[in-house]
């Protein structure tokens, strides 16, 4: 459990650094007229708990690749555990984690892939956004014949469409 704390701290302290961001923001998103941050990051984790994709969409403290991998594995482990805790037959696992300065939403379609989004507390429900992520994954990752299943996602089309989807949310 210690490792959960330490690994989680790296990511979940993002809201602590929010003060900083708010000072930075005018510089980094000068063109934007928004006042809230919206979506911080998006993660795609496969059914075995390996991180296939991660992207940051706000000026949050960046994390190195290993911490991200560990975090994905941990979240996966926790959600399996959460499913086991449930007194009723419920395989959905963790759907949401809320903190003082951030919210995590997780969506797992029937195929077992996991889509995770980190956002600020003001952000409304992101289930539709996560469904869209799944569609983008089905379209631009799986239908790309040169993508091998369960390998890290390096598909430019996926990147650009996901970025557009995030920006659409962050703008509204």
């Amino acid at each position, binding site marked *: 459990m210690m490792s959960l704390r330490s690994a989680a701290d790296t990511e979940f302290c993002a809201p602590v650094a929010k003060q900083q961001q708010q000072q930075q923001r005018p510089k980094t998103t000068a063109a934007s007229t928004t006042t809230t941050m919206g979506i911080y990051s998006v993660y795609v984790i496969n059914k075995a*708990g390996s991180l296939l994709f991660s992207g940051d969409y706000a000026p949050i403290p960046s994390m190195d690749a290993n911490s991200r991998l560990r975090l994905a594995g941990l979240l996966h482990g926790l959600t399996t555990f959460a499913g086991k805790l449930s007194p009723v037959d419920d395989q959905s696992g963790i759907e949401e984690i809320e903190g003082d300065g951030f919210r995590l939403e997780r969506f797992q379609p029937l*195929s077992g892939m996991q889509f995770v989004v980190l956002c600020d507390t003001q952000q409304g429900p992101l289930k539709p956004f996560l469904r869209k992520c799944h569609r983008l994954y089905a379209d631009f990752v799986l239908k790309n014949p040169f993508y091998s299943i369960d390998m890290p996602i390096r598909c430019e089309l996926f990147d650009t469409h996901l970025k557009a989807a995030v920006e659409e949310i962050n703008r509204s």
Partner: protein
Amino acid sequence: MARREVKRVNGELFTMTYGALVAQLLEDYESDDEVNKQLDKMGYNIGVRMVDDFIANTNTERCGSFKETCTTLAKEGFRMFLGVTATISNWTADDKECTLTIDDNPLVAFVELPDEHRELNYCNMYCGAIRGALELLQYRTRVTMTKDVLKGDKDTQLTITLLEVLDDVPPPED
């Protein structure tokens, strides 16, 4: 989104592409058996990719049983990807084996199977695709062609046998 733009492809182009593929495989491999295997393998790779597309674009709820899953696959899956429907019948008493009948098999429209390729299961890609799709939904299955219009049967029939329900996913590799 991409799928909206390419929603309709000429059906004959699809049929002919598949035909060209099978013909090329027959040239490249020695035996019909080997070609069947290759078709199954290709189908599998398509199946594991297709299932997410299906789930993402339909509002399918979790199916409660293997039986329900097969019915959804036959009714909605075939309609979504091939524009035809298939029917499921002949369930065994333990609900582990059934027959899937493809009513209007689009792959065989112009095909006459040559005498020297009697062992070829021309539509074997279906088997792989179904196996792949079901595997992602935690069902390990064996899918075989049992009736083939090209071999004089009345319709195309596949037999789906449930071998195992995959329960625990492998632990994440670090």
